[in-house]
């Protein structure tokens, strides 16, 4: 099983998620991202290529990160998103705000 990883390069942070971003995993990432943003990161990429489950707590983390980055003119994107998760984020009206890119070419 692919595990969660946070990789920093200059002011870019890439968060590679495991199979889930749910209420159990969110506190760990909240802390890690808070530290990264406090130390100057202004671009964050969430890679969901291995992620099969996302719940409203996980969505809350993505939105909170986006909100924080907007305050410092930073950027957030969510890439390699499975169709089922894309549809969930679409239903929540978040695909534009979070710059969500699906795994396939279907959603551009």
């Amino acid at each position, binding site marked *: 099983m692919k595990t969660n990883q946070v990789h920093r390069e200059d002011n870019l942070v890439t968060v590679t998620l495991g199979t889930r971003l*749910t209420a159990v995993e969110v506190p760990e990432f909240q802390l890690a991202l808070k530290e990264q943003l406090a130390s100057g990161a202004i671009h964050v990429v969430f890679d969901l290529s291995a992620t099969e489950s996302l*719940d*409203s707590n996980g969505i809350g983390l993505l939105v*909170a990160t986006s909100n924080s980055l907007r305050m410092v003119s930073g950027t957030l994107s969510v890439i390699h998103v499975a169709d089922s998760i894309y549809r969930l984020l679409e*239903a*929540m*009206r978040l695909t534009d705000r979070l710059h969500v890119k699906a795994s396939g070419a279907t959603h551009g």
Partner: protein
Amino acid sequence: MSARGRLRGLTTSLRPELTEVDAFCRRVFEVQRLDQYRDSGFGMELLLREFLNNAILHSDAPKGKRIQVAVRGRPSGILIRVTDRGRGFDWRRLQEAPPDPEATSGRGLAIGRIYARKMRYNQRGNSVRLWLSPQPHKETRNENQSSTS
């Protein structure tokens, strides 16, 4: 519960801890992925997580009180019931639309409306029943409703 079985029914109680939700979802899907409802997997897991998490994180139940959960497979689909020991909440004040995109919380019930064919709370608001069709997530919300049982 055998992994060779069908998703006829699983009724249990969980400690009010988030890791219990993970364990329960695994138990359900050991059976469900071999079952006629396997195509409903994402929506079913999402609903289980949302409403069990709600009971754990937002209920005012006395500390340590267990949460009742039941999942039943029926010819018309799947029925999920989640009940906590709290005083409940006023589901009549729920908003129809998903929250503002800037909001960092408040999406659980919107998800219920979208992914469940029907969602009903009891009068007190501490027990919810969710019906899923055998098919995966449908985009329409027209059939969803919140009301008393």
